[in-house]
C-alpha cells in the first residue's frame, strides 16, 4: 500500500483535555478509509487535523505531524488555504453558500482563479454537478437560490462544490447523518463511484455504513487508534479485543 496521508506522533488538546493521544497512522491512496468508533472517541477531531480545521476551535493545541505527499501540513511555512484546497471536506450538515446553485459550484473556481473565461467556468460547473449526480435535477434552474434545494440535494451540491477545487483528498465528517435514507444512499454511491480518483476518508458512527464503504478501516477509542488495517481483515478477524467488542456491538 502507498500511503497518501501519514500521521506521526499526533497529540491534540482542547484546553487541558487531551482529544488525541499519540496517533500514528497511514491512509492509503485512492481508497476509502473509514474511521469508526463510539461517540467522543476523537474521530472527528482526527479528521479535523487533516485540513487544518482543528485549530479553528478555541483553546485547541496540537503537536506532531500530518504528512501529505511527503510534506508536513503543520510546517511553519505552509499556507492553510492551499491545504484546504487540496483536502476537501464534506461536513455533517450540508451548508450551502448564500448564492445561486451555479455560484455555489463556481465559488471555489473563482477564488482560486482556476479557469480563463466564462465558457470554461460554465463547463466546469456542469462537469462537477454531473460528477455529483445533480445535473439532471438542477441543470435547468442553475440560478435559483441553493437554499431552494432539498437537504439531500444540498449535500450533493456541497460535494460538487468541494470537487470543483480539484482536491486530492476528500474528508467526510459523518456526511450522511443529517440525510434521509435515500439521500444517504445517493451520497454513498457517489463516494464509491469516484473513489478511484480520490483518496477518501470518512468518519462514521454507523457500523453498517463502514462495512458498505470501507477499503481500509481505522478503529478509535478514547482518543487512541486501537487498530487500523484493510477492511476485510479488520471486520472478519480483528486483532484487538476492543475492536472485536465494538464490532459485536458490545459498546
Amino acid at each position, binding site marked *: 500500500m502507498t500511503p497518501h496521508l501519514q500521521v506521526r506522533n499526533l497529540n491534540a488538546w482542547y484546553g487541558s483535555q487531551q482529544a488525541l493521544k499519540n496517533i500514528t497512522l497511514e491512509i492509503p491512496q485512492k481508497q476509502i478509509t473509514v474511521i469508526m468508533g463510539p461517540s467522543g472517541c476523537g474521530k472527528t477531531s482526527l479528521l479535523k487535523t487533516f*485540513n487544518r*480545521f482543528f485549530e*479553528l476551535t478555541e483553546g485547541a493545541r496540537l503537536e506532531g505531524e500530518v504528512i501529505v505527499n511527503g510534506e508536513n501540513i503543520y510546517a511553519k511555512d505552509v499556507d492553510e*488555504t*492551499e*491545504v*484546504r*484546497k*487540496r483536502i*476537501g*471536506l464534506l*461536513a455533517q*450538515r450540508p*451548508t*450551502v*453558500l*448564500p*448564492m*445561486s446553485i451555479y*455560484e455555489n459550484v463556481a*465559488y*471555489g473556481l473563482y*477564488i*482560486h482563479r482556476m479557469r480563463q473565461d466564462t465558457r470554461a467556468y460554465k463547463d466546469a460547473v456542469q462537469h462537477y454537478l454531473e460528477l455529483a449526480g445533480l445535473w439532471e435535477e438542477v441543470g435547468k434552474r442553475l440560478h435559483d*437560490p*441553493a*437554499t431552494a434545494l432539498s437537504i439531500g440535494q444540498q449535500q450533493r451540491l*456541497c460535494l460538487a*462544490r*468541494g470537487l470543483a*477545487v480539484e482536491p486530492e483528498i476528500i474528508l467526510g465528517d459523518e456526511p450522511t447523518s443529517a440525510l434521509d435514507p435515500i439521500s444517504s444512499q445517493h451520497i454513498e454511491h457517489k463516494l464509491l463511484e469516484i473513489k478511484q480518483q480520490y483518496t477518501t476518508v470518512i468518519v462514521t458512527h454507523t457500523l453498517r455504513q463502514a462495512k458498505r464503504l470501507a477499503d481500509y478501516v481505522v478503529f478509535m477509542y478514547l482518543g487512541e487508534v486501537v487498530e487500523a488495517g484493510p477492511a476485510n481483515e479488520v471486520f472478519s478477524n480483528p486483532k484487538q479485543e476492543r475492536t472485536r467488542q465494538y464490532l459485536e456491538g458490545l459498546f
Partner: protein
Amino acid sequence: MKFHWHRRHLGEIVAKILMYFSLGLVFASLTLILWTVLSKGLPALTWEMVSQTPKGGFYLGKEGGILNAILGSFYMAGGGTLIALVFSLPLALYLETCLGESRWGNWVRLSLDVLWGIPSIVYGAFGFILMLALGLRASLLGGIIILALLELPIMTRAMDEVIRRMPRDLEQAALALGSTKLEVATRVVLRQMLPGIVTAILLAFGRGIGDAASVLFTAGYTDSIPTSLMRPAASLPLAVFFQLGTPFPEVQQRAYASALILTIIVLVISLGSRWLAARVGKFSIK
C-alpha cells in the same frame, strides 16, 4: 370526541379577542393617521409645495413651497445615516467577533439600548450644549451630527442582531474550500448579511428624517435651500411644527401638506427597504 366546554377554552377565547383587538387598534390608528393627513393635506398639496421655497412675506410663507425643508431633511438624514453607518458597522462587527456574549459586550448592548430609548429632545439639548461649548451655531452640520448620534444605536443594534443570526457553519463551509478570511468576509458573510444591513440602514434613515426635536436647536430653521454645512438648515418635521403653530388657517393647511410629504417619504422608504431586502436576500440562508 364531542366538544365540551372547559375553562381552558375561555383562556383561548380571551387571548383571541385580545389579538383581534390589537390588530384592529393598529389598523385603525394607521388608517386614521393616513386619513387625517390625506384629507387635510391633499387640498393644499400643489406642485409649488415641493418645487419652491417659501414666499409671500411671512416667515413660513402662504405661497411658495417647502423645498427648503425637503432638501434639508434629506441632507441631514442622509448625512447622519452615512456617518452612523461608518461607525456602526465596525462597532457591530467588533461587538460580535471580539466581545461576543461577554460581560463587557452585554454592557455595550445595554448602553446602546438605553441610548435608543433616550428621548430625541434630550439629544437636541445635549447637542445644543455641545455646540455652545465648541462655539458652533445652529447649522446643517450640527443637524447631521446629532442625527448620526440618534441613529447610531438603532443601526448598531439592528446590525448586531443580523450578525448574531449568521449561521456558524457558513464560515467553515467557505474556509473548507480554501478561502482566505477576507474572502469569507466579503464574498460569503457580507452577502448573507446584506439584506439585514439594508434594513438597518433604512430603519435608521426613517427614524432620522422624521425627528423634529433633535434638530430644533442643532440645525435651526431657514427659508432658503441649504448651501453650506455651516449655515442653518430647514427640515420637514420642523416645517410641520412651525406651520401648525401659526395663527393663519392657510398656513396651517399647508402644515398638513408638509406632513403628507413626510409621510409619503417615510412610507416609500419603509416599503422600499422591504422590497430591497427581499431582493438582495433572495439567496440568503434563512
